[in-house]
C-alpha cells in the first residue's frame, strides 16, 4: 500500500471510531439522513405563530406558519404549518431543552418530518433548521461541526464540512440530487 492509500485508510478508520461515541441528546444526522427522513424540504419565511395543546393535553406545541417560497422535496402549497413542542398557553408554559424555535420574519430552509400525531416538525430537532442570511446563504441550525462523511484526506474533509454558508440554490441542488438517487435506488429494487 502506498503512503497516500495508507493515509486514506487511516482517516477513514479514525472518523468511524470518532462517531461511535454515545450522546445524551439528539443523534447526529448526516445530510443524506436528514434528507431521507424528511417528508418535506422547503424554504420560506415564518409569517405567524401560535401555541396550543395536543389532543391528549400532554404537550403544548408552538405552531409556525411558513410562507413557502421553494419546495425541494415533497409537495407543499403556498404555506405549511410546522410544530415544535413547548410554548405557553393560558398562563401555563412548557420548557423543553433543545426544542427548535423560530421567530416571525425568519427566512429559513427547513427539513420537516411527519411525526405520529400527524404534525410536521423539524427533522432531527435543530439539525433540520437552516437559517438564510441576507445574501441568500444558509447556516446550519444545530449540527455539531465535524465531519459527517467518511473523507479521503484532510483537504477533502475541509471542503465537505456540514452544510454551512452555501447558497440556498446549492442546498436545493444537494437535496434534489439525494432525492433522485433515492428514487433511482428504489427503482432498481
Amino acid at each position, binding site marked *: 500500500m502506498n503512503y497516500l492509500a495508507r493515509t486514506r485508510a487511516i482517516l477513514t478508520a479514525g472518523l468511524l471510531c470518532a462517531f461511535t461515541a454515545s450522546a*445524551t441528546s439528539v443523534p447526529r444526522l448526516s445530510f443524506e439522513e436528514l434528507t431521507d427522513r424528511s417528508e418535506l424540504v422547503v424554504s420560506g419565511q415564518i409569517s405567524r405563530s401560535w401555541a396550543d395543546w395536543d389532543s391528549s393535553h400532554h404537550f403544548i406545541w408552538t405552531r409556525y406558519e411558513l410562507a413557502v417560497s421553494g419546495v425541494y422535496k415533497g409537495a407543499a402549497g403556498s404555506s405549511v404549518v410546522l410544530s415544535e413542542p413547548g*410554548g405557553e398557553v393560558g398562563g401555563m408554559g412548557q420548557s423543553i431543552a433543545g426544542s427548535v424555535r423560530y421567530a416571525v420574519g425568519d427566512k429559513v430552509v427547513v427539513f420537516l418530518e411527519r411525526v405520529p400525531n400527524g404534525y410536521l416538525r423539524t427533522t432531527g430537532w435543530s439539525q433540520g433548521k437552516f437559517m438564510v442570511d441576507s445574501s441568500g446563504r444558509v447556516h446550519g441550525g444545530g449540527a455539531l461541526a465535524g465531519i459527517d462523511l467518511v473523507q479521503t484526506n484532510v483537504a477533502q474533509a475541509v471542503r465537505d464540512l456540514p452544510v454551512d454558508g452555501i447558497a440556498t440554490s446549492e442546498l436545493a441542488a444537494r437535496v434534489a440530487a439525494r432525492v433522485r438517487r433515492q428514487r433511482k435506488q428504489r427503482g432498481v429494487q
Partner: protein
Amino acid sequence: MRRILPLIFLLAVSSFGYIRLTTSGTPPVPIQRVDNTGIQFYLNSLIVAGATSSQTGGGSMTVISANSNPVVAARAAIATWNAVSTANVNFLPLKITQTPNIQHAEDGLMVVTIAYAADDVSAVGQALAFTVNEYAAATGTNPYVPGQTVVNGDILDSDILLNPAVQFSTDGSTSFDLQAVLTHEFGHALSANHTGVLGATMFQAPTPGTIARILSADDLSFVNSVYPAPSGAQTFGTISGTVTLSGSPVPYALLSFTDPAQGINIGGLAAANGTYSIQVPPGSYTTYAEPFGSVVQPGNLYFTVTQAAQTTTFQSTLLASPVVVAANSTTSASVAVAPGSTNITSLFYAFGGAGKTGDFSGILHSIVGPVLIPSGQSLDLLLTSPGMTSLTGLSIALTGKGIAVGAPRLDTTTLTGGQPIFRVTLTLASLTAPAPSNLFITQGSNTLSHTGAFVIVPPTPVISAAGLVSAVSDLTGVVGSGTVSPGEYVTLYGSGVAPATGPYAGIGYTNTGYVLGYLPQNLGGTSVTFNGVQAPVFFTGGGTQVNLQVPFEIANHQTAQVIASFGGSASAPITVPVVAQHPALFTFPANTNAYTANQDGSINTSTNAAARGSYITVVGTGIGLPSYTGIPYPIQTGGPAPAPPTADLNANGYTCTIGGVTAPVAFTGWYTGFAAEAEWIVQIPASLSATGAVPIQFSTGGVSTQSDLTVFIK
C-alpha cells in the same frame, strides 16, 4: 387558547456561565424549582431490564438492555445531584408508579417513562430523551390549584421521556448509558439548559461512555448558584465585563473561565449587548472569548434566526493574565477580541509516545466531543489542521488541572500533500476526579479554541493479580480467592480503582443508605462490571479497595470478565472462574468465631454462649442463586432480598455439623431485606457434649464454609 408573542427566546441572559432554561414570554425569565428541597420523581414500571416498545415504527425492539438495572441507574442519577453538598437540592427517594404513561404534564406526578402514546412519541422526536418542565407563565394563581400563588417561571411539574426507538443500557452493551442520560435529564428538571462545555454533563452530545454520570465544574456551578445552600454555602465571586471587537460590543460570544489549580472549568455566554456577569468560586481564571462555529453552533443553544444573525466571526482571544476573583467581590475583565475568521479549521488529533516522533499510530480523529485522557502519565498529543503550517508562531496550550504542556514539535510523518503533523508532550499529574481542559491553538494571528475538548480522568485502574477475594476470606484468610459466585459479597483490590477516601453505602437495604433501598452501581466514581453487568458497590476507599456484590446475572456462566472503572478510566479486564456457590461465614468477635446470634438475638460470645437445643443464626455470604424446589424467588442484584417461600426454608439443601455432630438446618437463605448477606439458622444438637468454642461448618453439593470457625456452646 391564547396566542403568544412570536419572539420565543430560550436563552438566559448572561447572569451565569452555564445556561438556564427560561420561559418563552417577553422578557424571558429563568425557570426555577420551588420544590428543590423535596423533588419527588416516579419511575414508571415500564422501565425494567429487557423493556421493549412497539412504538418504533419498525416493530418491537428492546429499549432497556436485558442485563441493565434501570432502577439503580435512576437512583444513582438522582444521588449524583443530591450529593452536591453546597447546593440546596434534594430529590426524594425515587418511587415506582404503575401509571402507564405521562398523563398530563400538569398532573403533579413527575414521571420518568418511555414515550408510548403517539403524542408523546411525537414530542420526543429523534431525541434520546427529553425533559418537559411545566411552569407558571405569569405571576398569580395556579390555574390548576385554586388559591395557590405562583410566580412567573415557577416549575410546577416535570416529566422525563425516553425515546422508544433508542436502546439504553447500564452495562455498556449499547451506546447510550441510561444513568448518564438520566443525570443529564434531571439537570434539565432543575432548569439547566445545555452548556457549551464539551466535558460537562449538560453538554448535549456526544459524550463518550459514562462520563456524563459525573458532574463537571460547569454543572456544579449551575446547581450551586441557582440553589445555594442556606448556610455554609459555597461563596462566589463575580467576573463581569464586555466582549468587544474594534470597540463595538460582540453579541453572544462564548466565554471560558478555567482555574487549573482547582480543576474548575466553566462556560458562559455574553448577552446581545456583549456584556456578561458570571458567578464563580474564588480563584484565578484563565479567560477567553470564542466565536460560535468551532464545535458549538448557534443552533446548539437554540438561537433564533435573529439571534444567530447577530453572532459574528472573530478570533478566539485569550486574556493575557488570569482573572483573580475573591469571594463576594466583582472583578472586571473585558475581552477585546481579535478580528477575522480563523483558518485553523478541521482539526484532527492523535496520541503518541511522550517525546517521540514518527510513531504516528495511524488513526486521526476529528474533535466532535470530549476526548478522555487518563492522567498520571506523559504522552504526546498530535495535531494537524490545514491552518497549522509551521512551528514559527505556533503555540499549543491545554489548560486544565495538573497539565504541563511542552513546546510544539514537528513529527516526521506528514499527511497527503505534505501537511505537517505537530506534537506536544503532555505531562499529566494523577487526578482523582475528571477535569475538562481547554485546547487553545495559535498560529500567527489565527487561533482555535475547543472548550472542554479533552477531559483528564483518573489514571487507568489496575486490578491486582489476585485482586478479587471473598469479603469473608479477606477477614479470615481461609476461603480461597479468585473465584466468585452469584450474589456474593467480595472485595476487589488494585491500584487506582477507588478514591482515596471513599463513601460507604452501608451493607444491604436501609432507608438511610446512600441510595435508598438499592445499592449504588457507582460509588465515589467507582464502578465494576462482571461480564458487562454492573455490580452494586458497598464501599470504596484507600484508592485500592472496592467492596461489592457479584451480580446474580452471572449465574450459569463459566467465567466472569471483571473490569473496574474509576472516574471515567477503565481497567484492563481480568477473568475469574464462576462457581454456583462459594459459602463463607463472617467472623465476630475474633477472626476464629463465626458471626452468630443466639436464639434471643444477642451476639454469641465466650461469655454469652448458646445452650444445647437452642437455635442460632449464623451470618455469611456466597450461597449463590437460591433454589427453592421450583418456587420462584425474584431476588435482584443490589436490592433487598425478598422473604423466602415458607414451603422451603433451606435453600440449596445445606447441612451443618457442630463439634462433628450433625445439626438440623432450619433455614438457609439470603437475609431478608439485605443485599449479599446470607444467614443459616441451625439447632444445636441436644446430644452435643462439647462446650466452649466448638467448630461449626455448613456444606452442600461439595462446597463448605470455613473449616476453622467456632461457635460458643454452654
